[in-house]
């Protein structure tokens, strides 16, 4: 499964969820979606995507929030899984695991190919954990994984790709924040 495959499956099923992108997903997601409920967390502090998503869930109870994070970022902040698992919130953590620091040129992350992220999520307290190593497997569980209460952890194993351009968000941060906040306002 390519990174783009993984995001295409999400794009067809994201509904009214907020989608937070980080790192390599920032480059791909705008090719698939331009919803005001998209938030490209760039510039970012690496590893803070899941905490950001949790904060949004807590501020806006009932609103589904999908966080697209990479393995490199998640490894910088594994404790965030323990934190998120304390709450009953519709937070959907989609781990794009390519084994690489893609944005910096494709260097291997620690433990590439050996880390059992599903076990880490379960051990942290996630009750709903899914795994997919190809597009068909992801398509088979996506509808279920992206619905209902959470938090939910989805481990998506994707092909490592090198030589991709450094991502940039399609809008300045200030504009993104205003757009997202407006979209989160209750409709009259």
């Amino acid at each position, binding site marked *: 499964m390519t990174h783009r495959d993984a995001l295409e499956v999400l794009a067809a099923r994201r509904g009214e969820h907020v989608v937070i992108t980080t790192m390599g997903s920032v480059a791909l997601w705008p090719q698939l979606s331009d919803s005001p409920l998209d938030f490209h967390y760039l510039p970012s502090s690496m590893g803070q995507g899941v905490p950001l998503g949790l904060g949004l869930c*807590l501020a806006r109870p009932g609103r589904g929030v999908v966080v697209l994070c990479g393995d490199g970022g998640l490894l910088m902040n594994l404790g965030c899984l323990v934190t998120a698992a304390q709450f009953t919130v519709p937070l959907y953590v989609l781990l794009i695991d390519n084994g690489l620091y893609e944005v910096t040129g494709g260097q291997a992350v620690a433990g590439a190919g050996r880390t059992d992220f599903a076990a880490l999520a379960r051990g942290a307290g996630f009750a709903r954990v899914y795994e997919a190593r190809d597009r068909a497997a992801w398509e088979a569980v996506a509808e279920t994984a992206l619905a209902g209460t959470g938090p939910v952890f989805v481990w998506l194993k994707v092909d490592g790709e090198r030589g991709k351009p450094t991502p940039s968000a399609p809008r300045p941060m200030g504009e993104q924040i205003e757009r997202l906040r407006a979209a989160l306002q209750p409709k009259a």
Partner: protein
Amino acid sequence: MPNPNEIVSALVAAGFTHLVWIPDSHLGTWEPVLAGSPLAPIRVCREGEAVGVAIGLLLGGAKPLVAIQCTGFFEAGDAVRNAVHDMKLPLKLLVGVRGARAAKAGTGRDNCPHFAQRLVDAWELPHAHFDPAEANANLSAALATLTQAGPRVLLWSE
């Protein structure tokens, strides 16, 4: 010195909707009161993560306060930089400064007060100092500095 009931009541009165924290031996004394308050704490595992949660809360329209010890504030520098300077968010931090009272009395060896001051300066964070043990300590006035527009840090002497 204000007791935990007075402190938590003042935090609620200041308008904070969420408290994201990692307690130390001083902040931790507030826990029993926080548990039954509207500011039931959001417990995180590391201080940078506390800032990440606060970013999400701020994007969602809430008014969070991050309460951490200065040692964790040192660790959280990149997350603070991102929230305040990349995202221009009005991040509010209450930072317990370990050893501050001893340093003021000239009896401390802890380097935390030295570096806490230098790091809020380095990160260009508007800040104020508060020592709850001072005879004329004004808690409401100290918390009022946190509610001013933009990012703010209250360095809380321990």
